[in-house]
């Protein structure tokens, strides 16, 4: 931190020289240049002790995000994403099938009766076939 402050002081002195040279080359009056220097000085004096920092868990949150976005996580993310899609597809297929059967056979109980009849018919056919 001390190194940073020393660097800043050096930079302010360097900037004063640069701004004097630049302003003189732009034909600014000495008074104007001095006013600018006062403005810089005012800003420096008031902001020199100001320190900014992110929230205290900045690094932890960041590293958590980075770990989650690592290639290994991408695969698991893709798998869970795929699984979710498959489940949604299966659910839709089931709903579609049930609604199709319902509209075809009128009601679920009727459907069950037909199915039982169909089962009986199948048994009958298989018993006839067995006779042969």
């Amino acid at each position, binding site marked *: 931190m001390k190194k*940073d402050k020393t*660097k*800043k002081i050096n*930079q*302010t002195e*360097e*900037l004063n020289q*640069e*701004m004097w040279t*630049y*302003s003189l080359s*732009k034909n600014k009056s000495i008074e104007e240049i001095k*006013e*600018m220097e*006062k*403005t*810089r000085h*005012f*800003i*420096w*004096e*008031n*902001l020199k002790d*100001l*320190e*900014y*920092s*992110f*929230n205290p868990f*900045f*690094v932890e*949150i*960041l*590293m958590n*995000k*980075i*770990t989650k*976005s690592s290639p290994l996580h991408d695969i698991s993310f893709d798998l869970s994403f795929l699984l979710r899609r498959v489940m949604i597809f299966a659910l839709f297929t089931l709903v579609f099938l049930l609604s199709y059967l319902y509209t075809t056979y009128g009601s679920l109980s009727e459907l069950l009766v037909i199915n039982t009849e169909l089962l009986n018919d199948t048994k009958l056919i298989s018993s006839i076939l067995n006779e042969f």
Partner: protein
Amino acid sequence: MTNTKNLERDYDKELIQRTVSGDLRAFTELVRKYEKPVAATVISMLGYCSEADDVGQEVFISFYKNIEKFRYESGVKTYLIRIAINLSLNELKRRKRLNFRFTDYKNVSNEVANDTQNISDNQEVIQLAINKLDKKMKAVVILRLIEGYSTKETAEILEIPEGTVLSRLARAQEILREFLKEKIRNYEKR
């Protein structure tokens, strides 16, 4: 001085290589090392807000994603500050779009002059005045004047000629002087 810089550069290089080979602890070290200067730049540009933290995170995530492509043409700090400035400028653009506000110096000057009379804290007044600057000038003021980067470093970060850094700074100072003249007068009287 050059030796210290070279040592620092070599150490950064080692940390980058370790990160590329999958050592996340090395990247954490890089983040801890450069968190402060990135925070100073982003918060100076955007002020203390939740977006500042988000932009800070984006800076390091973008660095991590592109770390294999890092060519050491500039130092890590310069590279990170460049990303920080660009992302902060994007955030300011986004805010501007949301607010539908356009900077008009004449109006802003009056607006700030009125605001500054009511604020007793010089730090707050200066920050208010800097926030009202055009975003390109603001970036120069923050890097060169406040954060103490050299003109060459500022030019490198913003990818503009050194002469442009000085001309933007000179123009920004004129505007700031207008905003702050009352406060500077009072400050000198003390």
